């Protein structure tokens, strides 16, 4: 048996995160809030139990918290075109990290209102609002500029065709 590992580049973590369902066994549906174990995860649990390792089987049953948090970091789901993905992963995080809460599904508008009210006293919020405003202005400018550029480019191509230069 071979293990290929480079020192300085490998990480350690808690038992549940280390031995809970590896990526090859994970289903995609838990990002949508469905926490059911996949067929491969169930088989892995059976294998651990067959080899007398109920502790590792327990890790597979309880790894969703770590899988969700692992996927959360660095994953960009905050743009307007990822709203559905953002809301479903938020729902999955809430129901997994706080199992007693049974959160109801909400719209992005409801979330916006609720969350801004909840964190209005946060120190960094004003700075981030400014950044966001600047980003919105840039986006709206490019919404005007880019279509205009496209129209102009198309017109120029038409002119060249008419003048027989192409």
């Amino acid at each position, binding site marked *: 048996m071979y293990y290929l590992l480079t020192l*300085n*580049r490998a990480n*350690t*973590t808690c038992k549940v995160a280390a031995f809970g369902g590896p990526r090859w066994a994970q289903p995609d549906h838990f990002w949508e809030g469905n926490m059911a174990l996949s067929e491969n995860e169930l088989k892995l649990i059976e294998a651990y139990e*067959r080899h007398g390792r109920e502790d590792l089987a327990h890790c597979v049953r309880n790894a969703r*918290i770590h899988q969700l948090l692992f996927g959360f970091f660095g994953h960009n789901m905050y743009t307007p075109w990822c709203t559905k993905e953002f809301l479903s992963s938020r729902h999955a995080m809430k129901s997994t990290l706080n199992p007693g809460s049974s959160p109801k599904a909400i719209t992005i508008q409801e979330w916006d209102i609720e*969350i801004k009210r909840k964190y209005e006293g946060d120190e960094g919020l004003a700075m981030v609002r400014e950044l966001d405003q600047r980003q919105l202005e840039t986006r709206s400018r490019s919404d005007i500029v880019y279509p205009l550029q496209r129209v102009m480019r198309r017109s120029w191509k038409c002119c060249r065709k008419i003048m027989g230069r192409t």
Partner: protein
Amino acid sequence: MPGSPGHDLDELSPQQLDRFIDTYALEAIKLSSVKFAAVGGLCLDNAGAITVGSLVDTRFCNGPDSNHLGGPFKSTRDQYLYQIEACLSAIKAGMLFRLSPLRAYLAHLEVRDLILDCAALAEEEPEFYLKHPDGTADNILLDESGAVTALLDWEW
């Protein structure tokens, strides 16, 4: 090194899949005997012994050495909270989620509170273990029977 990458497990026969899962479980059982005292990245100390230092995570790469992300930590909860703070700082500095910083920032504040209130993450963790950063079947070599012959690329 014998074997070929697992890639698509759906292509294995039911017998090969059972063999794969069984041998994978046996390797994981062996790995569970290798324990560490903290959450972080493996490195060598001055005496040349393997120890746990800063966490390595290339998703947070913003400079020459910034993919070493804090730590070692005494719990995964501390690790997640540190990562949240790192993300919040990077968003404020305009370095992360630049297309929609406000929504990203608020979502991170919300998840920070979820982590702080999570009973499962507050439990004591006495020992820590190696974690593969990408446990897809691409990083596992199998022989013709489906048995695992190698686990590759444990590094970030």
